[in-house]
């Protein structure tokens, strides 16, 4: 590199002229001079308005170029290029907590009104199920259990008794007994008459032959 200010190292302020500074000013601005040369140029610029103005021009030019290029680069990256890249990227995976948070944020306050009611219903249902599955924990049977036990004993049902009493077989048997008793009263000796035997046979045959046919009528 040529050294236009090498000869002014002993007394730089007196030997360096503006013409010489013009050649090394870009080097001074870019920091390419050594310490001694930098000191000589700096001393001259501190006293020369013209050279200081030239240095300011270099600074403004650098700032203008840098800012324009960086702005253009930023626009390019944040503009079409980045938009295209984003379209090709897979959607980011969201954690369960984030999804629950989104769902919760999406709920309107009005939609939250039934939540306590639903919660109470669920709790009540669970308690009822637990009590039904483990009745011994209550100490006494529930009304439902009592009803189930009563239903399991059909012989005590009055409806069932009435049905039995209304059947024709019982009625026929009762008539036969009355008839046999009447015959026995008419025949206190206990002798078996042909009439009583026939009635008894008839009654027994009717009982065996058609116990339900007349009950249907």
């Amino acid at each position, binding site marked *: 590199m040529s050294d236009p200010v090498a000869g002014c190292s002993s007394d730089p302020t007196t030997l360096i002229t503006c013409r010489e500074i013009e050649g090394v000013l870009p*080097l001074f601005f*870019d920091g*390419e001079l050594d310490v001694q040369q930098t000191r000589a140029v700096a001393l001259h610029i501190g006293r020369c308005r013209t050279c200081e103005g030239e240095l300011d*021009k270099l600074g403004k030019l*650098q700032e*203008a*170029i840098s800012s324009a*290029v960086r702005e253009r680069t930023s626009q390019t990256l944040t503009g079409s290029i980045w938009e295209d890249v984003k379209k090709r990227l897979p959607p980011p995976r969201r954690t369960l907590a984030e999804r629950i948070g989104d769902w919760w944020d999406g709920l309107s306050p009005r939609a939250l009104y039934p939540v306590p009611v639903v919660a109470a219903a669920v709790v009540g249902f669970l308690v009822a199920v637990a009590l039904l599955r483990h009745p011994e924990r209550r100490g006494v049977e529930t009304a439902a259990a009592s009803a189930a036990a009563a239903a399991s004993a059909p012989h005590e049902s009055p409806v069932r008794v009435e049905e039995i009493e209304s059947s024709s077989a019982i009625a026929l048997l009762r008539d036969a007994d009355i008839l046999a008793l009447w015959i026995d009263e008419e025949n206190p000796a206990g002798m078996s008459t042909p009439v009583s035997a026939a009635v008894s046979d008839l009654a027994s045959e009717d009982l065996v032959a058609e116990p339900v046919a007349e009950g249907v009528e």
Partner: protein
Amino acid sequence: MLQAVSELTPDHKAVILLREVEGLSYEEISQVMQCSKGTVMSRLHYARKKLQNKLRDYL
């Protein structure tokens, strides 16, 4: 500004961008462009002069 830079020759454009935007030293620019350090200084000097002349009203 970008229009003025784009009108520079490729060598001048490269050296001005490497210096003013990327902040490389003369030595680094000479290695990148595979030229001497004096050539870098010369190209940078002329590129700056051209830009200053074109953007005289804006600087």
